[in-house]
């Protein structure tokens, strides 16, 4: 075996992504250093790392967000590189800079690239210059009716009129045909003046049935950029992704190639080094730049499964100055289901202790999680408990595999989002492949009658057996062993029913 590329990596993160990096580091012969907050003393990323350093209190601002504490831990433990994971400090340009100053390799892009892509206006400008398509629209208000009509025709209907001073969806009017444009414009101006005291309005294409599609790239220090295909991430609620798949069922090979090319152009335009994701809005044969995430993405495993690459390994490799690998021929279809600790009906976070855990297995099933029996799910961190990733020969089999894996996955102690994901996967809309970012709102949230009937039956049988098995007049000597459940039931009966 060749000597490892780095001696020791500090992972400035927690949970499944910290574990993800530890695993690849170990496989590459690189020692790992975990950092932890007080709440995470017993977390799996601490137990699985080779070294562990406490960096502060439970609140992220007291630990995982502290640049000084993380760098001190790196120095103390002798780490020669830092992996930021996602979230926390991963898109903090100052952190990238501080690592460079401390002589520790940051496994991500330069501060400059992070800053450019982190500023929405600047990112759009860079993308535009690099020939990456943006959602068509005007930058300024147009007062001349004839010009407005001409520009709207150029953009193509439907178009949106957006109040310049507005935001959060306020002051938007959708215009579907030219005949309605001028009337809508004057109404929009009047509304904007009333609401914001500013009657300027912009024209922008209204993207119908939008899909969220993103391209995974890895760039090296020698100008090499590889695109590892795309991921379809339209199954979202409140802009939080719940299910992702690869490839996107809507793309033609030509569109895919064009999208990958555009992503690579953008990466080159900012001298990008490392793994990154370029997000696009896709609609009816066209795609538009949304933003670039200058880090490893949560849903990167579906790309890894299809391409047979390890993206964290590529991160280490390009950071060490090696060229990025060529993209192998992708194989089959991959789906990721995010398992969040939340109420499946109202998406409220669910806190508690994991009392029982049974994980799915078998062919084509990968679980990235930091779950263990006994884990306390606290309010301090993200509610994502696990990423269930399946890979199969074709899309139908991948969907079937994801559903069977969800059925095998047992978590007791907190409620999870799995039932919602299962119903989305099982829906006609998802199966058809022809869906958009509104899919979750259209999914039936009610379990089937079959399930409800079975649940009622199971609950009744459970109660009957628990009730029946308590002797009517138990004597200490002859009493059969009584489980905690039976005791609970008896307490219930004595406390309520028999009073």
């Amino acid at each position, binding site marked *: 075996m060749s000597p490892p590329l780095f001696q020791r990596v500090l992972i400035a993160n927690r949970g499944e992504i910290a574990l993800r990096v530890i695993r690849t580091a170990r496989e590459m012969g690189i020692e790992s250093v975990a950092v932890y907050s007080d709440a995470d003393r017993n977390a799996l990323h601490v137990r699985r790392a080779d070294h562990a350093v406490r960096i502060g209190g439970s609140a992220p601002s007291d630990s995982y967000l502290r640049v000084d504490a993380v760098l001190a831990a790196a120095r103390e433990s002798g780490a020669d590189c830092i992996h930021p994971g996602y979230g926390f400090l991963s898109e903090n340009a100052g952190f990238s800079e501080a690592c460079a100053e401390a002589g520790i390799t940051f496994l991500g892009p330069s501060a400059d690239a992070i800053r450019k892509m982190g500023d929405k206006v600047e990112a759009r400008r860079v993308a535009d210059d690099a020939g990456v398509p943006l959602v068509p629209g005007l930058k300024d208000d147009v007062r001349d009716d004839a010009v407005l009509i001409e520009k709207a025709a150029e953009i193509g209907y439907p178009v949106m009129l957006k109040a310049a001073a507005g935001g959060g969806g306020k002051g938007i009017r959708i215009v579907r045909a030219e005949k309605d444009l001028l009337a809508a414009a004057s109404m929009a101006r009047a509304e904007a003046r009333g609401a914001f005291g500013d009657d300027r309005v912009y024209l922008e294409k209204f993207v119908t049935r939008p899909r969220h599609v993103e391209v995974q790239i890895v760039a090296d220090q020698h100008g090499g950029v590889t695109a590892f295909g795309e991921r379809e991430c339209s199954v979202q609620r409140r802009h939080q992704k719940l299910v992702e798949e690869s490839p996107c069922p809507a793309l033609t090979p030509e569109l895919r190639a064009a999208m990958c090319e555009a992503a690579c152009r953008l990466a080159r335009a900012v001298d990008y080094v490392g793994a990154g994701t370029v997000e696009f809005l896709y609609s009816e044969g066209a795609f538009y730049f949304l933003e670039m995430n200058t880090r490893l993405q949560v849903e990167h495993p579906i790309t890894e499964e299809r391409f047979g690459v390890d993206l964290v390994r590529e991160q280490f490799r390009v950071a060490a100055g090696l060229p990025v690998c060529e993209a192998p021929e992708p194989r089959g279809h991959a789906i990721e289901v995010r398992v969040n600790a939340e109420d499946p009906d109202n998406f409220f*976070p669910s806190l508690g202790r994991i009392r029982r855990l049974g994980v799915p297995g078998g062919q084509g099933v990968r679980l990235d999680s930091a779950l263990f029996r006994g884990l306390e799910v606290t309010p301090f961190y993200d509610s994502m408990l696990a990423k269930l990733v399946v890979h199969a020969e074709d899309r139908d089999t991948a969907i079937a595999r994801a559903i069977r894996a969800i059925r095998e996955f047992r978590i007791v102690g907190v409620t999870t989002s799995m039932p919602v994901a299962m119903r989305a996967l099982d829906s006609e809309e998802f199966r058809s492949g022809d869906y958009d970012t509104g899919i979750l709102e259209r999914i039936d949230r009610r379990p089937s009658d079959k399930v409800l009937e079975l649940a009622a039956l199971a609950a009744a049988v459970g109660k009957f057996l628990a009730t029946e098995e308590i002797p009517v007049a138990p004597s200490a000597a002859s009493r059969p062993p009584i489980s905690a459940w039976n005791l609970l039931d008896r307490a219930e009966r004595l406390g309520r*029913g028999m009073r």
Partner: protein
Amino acid sequence: MKYFAKALDVERSFTFERRNGSLLVVRDDGESFVVDLSPVGDGGAYSFLVDGRSFDCLLEREQGTTVVQLLGERVVVAIQDERELAAQRVAGHKGGGRRAIEAVMPGVVVDVKVAEGDTVEDGQTLCILEAMKMQNPIPADGRAVVARVAVKPGDVVAGGDLLVELDDAPEAEEGAAS
């Protein structure tokens, strides 16, 4: 003895019989099932056989309800036997009265949507609690009048802390309430 189960809008009652070592359940619609609910270890896992069909299920029994996990779904079933139902009927209908809406989890109050004296409808958002990186609207538990607002934006609350107190509202007209 009869057992009454309610899973969302599905309401059923069951009676049980033992026959030649098998357990027979008769449902109120006359359908009957041979069942075998076999506990696996002590954590609430069961192997549930219904007329030879097999289900891997989890039952978490709590006061008056059982949370059932099977076929990838999670269903909260209200479950009572005849005695419990009779006892409850004796206790009579409690009604709403004044009640506290509490924080279901620790978090930060980012917005308060109601003021004292407001009449709110079932499900209407009272305030918004941010926890675990998400904004969570806290809804009214029924039509009510806001008796007291105990928090203001920016407050940090622990799980169980009082957010809002509600009083029963005068009955709305039949049409509006349904």
